[in-house]
């Protein structure tokens, strides 16, 4: 059994450096994935990931322990990402009016295109791979706050409750932002699918 986060945090506070190393090793990939999804740039993502852990270490005394360690870690990560985007002046995606566009989201390009083309059939792994490579581009079109929620949900599998705590927003907002973020990503991916079909001739499968 792996030692749980809070026990490790306590040990770090007691001066145990190895405990912090374990925490870093436990979360490094996921923190990096979130940063990469947010920023798209590999080097920036790496810098942010390191910065996040350094900050966590530095402010460990401020961590109350009333929430999970990882929600705190991810909040710090997302905040650093947003800072970096602001500094670079390229937050990507649209602004908050995004939420108003429910009607647009409902008129999806092609219902079922993604699901039916991908399904769970391993034979289609080539297409899946191709689309997976487009994921970061698709993510870049999603407003930063929506993007953060989507990433934390998919990478960490956070519950809506945890998302609400991590990002300090009501659960209803979590739900609606996730919905819109997914609609947006879906739209982009469907467009790729269509392009792909146009290239290879319709019904090539």
């Amino acid at each position: 059994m792996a030692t749980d986060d809070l026990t490790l945090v306590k040990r770090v506070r007691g001066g145990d450096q190895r405990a912090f190393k374990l925490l870093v090793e436990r979360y490094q990939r996921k923190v990096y994935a979130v940063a990469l999804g947010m920023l798209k740039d590999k080097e920036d993502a790496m810098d942010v990931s390191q910065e996040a852990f350094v900050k966590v270490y530095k402010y460990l005394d401020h961590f109350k322990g009333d929430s999970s360690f990882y929600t705190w870690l991810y909040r710090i990560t997302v905040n650093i990402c947003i800072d970096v985007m602001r500094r670079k002046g390229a937050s990507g995606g649209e602004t908050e009016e995004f939420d108003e566009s429910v009607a647009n989201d409902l008129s999806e390009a092609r219902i079922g295109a993604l699901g039916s083309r991908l399904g769970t059939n391993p034979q289609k792994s080539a297409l899946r791979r191709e689309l997976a490579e487009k994921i970061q581009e698709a993510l870049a079109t999603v407003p930063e706050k929506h993007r953060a929620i989507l990433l934390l949900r998919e990478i960490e599998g956070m519950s809506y409750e945890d998302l609400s705590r991590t990002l300090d927003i009501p659960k209803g907002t979590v739900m609606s932002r996730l919905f819109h973020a997914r609609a947006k990503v879906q739209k982009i991916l469907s467009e790729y699918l269509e392009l792909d079909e146009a290239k290879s001739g319709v019904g090539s499968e």
Partner: protein
Amino acid sequence: MAGNPACERFVPLLSPYIDGELSPTDRVNVERHLGACRDCASRAADLRAESALLRVGLEMAVDEVDFKDFTQRVMARVTPERPPLLERLRISLSEMFLYHRTAMVSSLATAAALALVVIPMVMNQNDAPMGYGADRMRVSAVRATEGAKVAPVVLESDDGNTIIWVVDQEAAPAHDGSESRPKAGNPPDESDELDGEPLKKGPAKTVPPKGGEL
């Protein structure tokens, strides 16, 4: 939108549905609708496919990265592992002599002149000379070897920065509080003249932070 007006109500629930975040009542309603509406069933399939795609896509990207040094680099930043002070000094000094000989000589000259004024203010201190901001930093005077001509003052701040202040011992009094023996040729009165003046001290040589890499 396929003509079913119920879809409008259910579409926003599909995302929390695939996340398993609906109340039992809502879930039953959604499932009943999905059984009857092919479009919404397809939408739910789309959402699942997208969710899987996102995970796979990011995993692929993360797999490309080598995390071998990640922990080490983080740890180096939070706990700068440093060789003993003396060792670091030797390295810094030898680097200075190697790469900045000219700068070194002129800064030594400056330091020597400065030392005449500053040292009397700090001479009664052995390990932590006064006037170097010891309240904010760790300050100590170090002699690399017995009877070394250079006994630099090392100022270390908490963020890993190190300032090494080199003074020429030939021209300056020793730090151990022994009698000041100004070198012949130096105006012996200079220190007295300036004594007591609120002199600003400045490092003769600033060495870039060494914390992480040493």
